[in-house]
């Protein structure tokens, strides 16, 4: 397993998709901060009045703030990366190269997953570093005190975003493995997360006065949404409590992660590599 992880790490570290994704995550975070800062200082009037409070952009709130960049945009990037990593192994013919080297199929697959999830952790850290940096810049310009959030909140936030990236990355990995093509896999993954799931959940919620809402609450990104929305403070104003608790969301997301990785492992173990 160590050999496989080493090989996967060596392979991924120069992969343009990872470097571009890191830049995208950083760029999106800076953009969100920049636009929010402008809106906070120029709220407008009447119906077009903005609702961003400058208080949400200071360092003590940065963990709550980066959740917006982490989901759904960061999750979409994770799906794309997962689909690329798994699907391109078939289109480049590297799957057969890998599987004729010695480590078994499952060892190869789990090594790939470990290396991929390490990259998701790196993307999470980049998101947090850029978010923290942006909040410090805002605070410095506004002459506000620079106060860090509690370490436990930072740790919880890191864990949350990593889990959201990990499970969405696993969707991409599983689709790439199933379809054996990166382009089709990332298309299907993005359409599902950004459209199909939303439509399905709305439909289920509308049935019989919401009697089947519990089914909707089992969908993957309903739980991701609930988990990221659990990071909230008074600075952001009043909010509606999510129908899914943070603890339940963590359990469901881990279950999806494990299930997707195991399904893909079974496919890799059983299927011929042609």
């Amino acid at each position, binding site marked *: 397993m160590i050999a*496989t992880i080493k090989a996967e790490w*060596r392979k991924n570290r*120069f*992969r343009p998709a990872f470097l571009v994704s890191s830049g995208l995550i950083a760029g999106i975070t800076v953009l969100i901060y920049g636009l929010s800062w402008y809106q906070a200082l120029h709220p407008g009037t009447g119906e077009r009045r903005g609702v961003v409070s400058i208080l949400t952009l200071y360092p003590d709130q940065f963990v709550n703030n980066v959740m917006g960049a982490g989901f759904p945009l960061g999750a979409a990037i994770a799906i794309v990366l997962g689909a690329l990593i798994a699907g391109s192994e078939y289109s480049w013919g590297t799957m*057969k*190269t890998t599987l004729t*080297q010695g480590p078994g199929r499952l060892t190869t697959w789990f090594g790939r997953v470990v290396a991929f999830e390490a990259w998701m952790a790196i993307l999470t850290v980049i998101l947090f570093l850029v978010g923290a940096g942006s909040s410090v810049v805002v605070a410095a310009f506004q002459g506000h005190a620079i106060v860090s959030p509690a370490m436990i909140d930072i740790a919880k936030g890191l864990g949350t975003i990593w889990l959201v990236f990990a499970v969405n990355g696993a969707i991409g990995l599983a689709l790439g493995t199933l379809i054996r093509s990166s382009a089709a896999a990332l298309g299907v993954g993005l359409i599902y997360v950004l459209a199909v799931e939303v439509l399905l959940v709305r439909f289920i919620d509308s049935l019989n006065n919401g009697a089947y809402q519990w089914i909707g609450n089992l969908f993957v990104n309903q739980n991701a949404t609930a988990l990221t929305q659990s990071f909230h403070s008074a600075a952001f104003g009043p909010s509606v409590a999510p129908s899914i608790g943070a603890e339940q969301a963590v359990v469901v997301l881990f279950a999806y992660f494990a299930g997707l990785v195991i399904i893909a492992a079974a496919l890799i173990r059983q299927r011929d590599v042609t």
Partner: protein
Amino acid sequence: MTPRPPKPNVTVMENTTIVETHSLTKRYGSGVLAVNSVDMSVRRGEVYGFLGPNGAGKTTTLRMLVGLIRPTTGTATVAGHTPGSPAGLAKIGALIESPGFYPYLSGRENLRVVADMASVAQKRVDEVLDMVELTSRAGRKFGTYSTGMKQRLGVAGALLKDPDLLILDEPTNGLDPQGMAEMRKLIKDIGQGDRTVLLSSHLLGEVEAICDRVGVISNGRLVTQSTVQDLLGEEGVMVRAQPADAAQEMLTRMFGPEAVSRQDGAIHLKTDPGKSMEINRQLTAAGIGVSELRPFERSLEDVFFQLTGEKQGS
């Protein structure tokens, strides 16, 4: 085509096989029978040519030998292990169909990834790059390589483990004549010593020039397996003379009826080509005009078309 001389420094252990298959069969779904009950044996130390037309089942067979495809029925033992087992793969280097590498990595980085996978020391990467003469271009991205360079990198990847068995599936595919010649030389060099090479090809000249033994596959069935010499049969002499009947009668008297046959107006003699001068002298002395007299040898191409039932030039 000059027949391949026997390897000077190789002891082929006649009774030791490195690849053994029994009734190996692959059927896709309920339809296509890609490989049909193949019994194949490759001996240690030899260069074995796996010959067949496109679509005959060569690549499917090789994929089964390295564990990429599971057989529908039948068994195989490769390097003493079940195909695809980690212990067996540790002794096998394979280039199946086309080299599969990451286009955004350099040739050297690609080999480093493969070396990590195979738990091979990184210093081996430079050794194999040197063997395939790619050292000077190893820093370039794989995606920018020519077809010949890609194939050579594929061979380098297969050599990383210093394998007992090297499986090369159509390694000259897509190469220009110079690239093909270079690849043949490389395979010959690799095949020196006690390493076994299993080379699949549809190029008859390539197999004839490089291989010790040949297996011919057609429509999924292994139609023959033999040494190149046995397949080509005995050497002889081809004579064209007038009157042909008189010439045939005289040669039959000289060499016996079993040594003489007539094909397309030419007389084929199973005899030592060194006797050509004597044959010419006797025929001329008998007043028979000799228009052509030359050593005769069946080419592997003749044998191949005869075995596979394919038509030459079709």
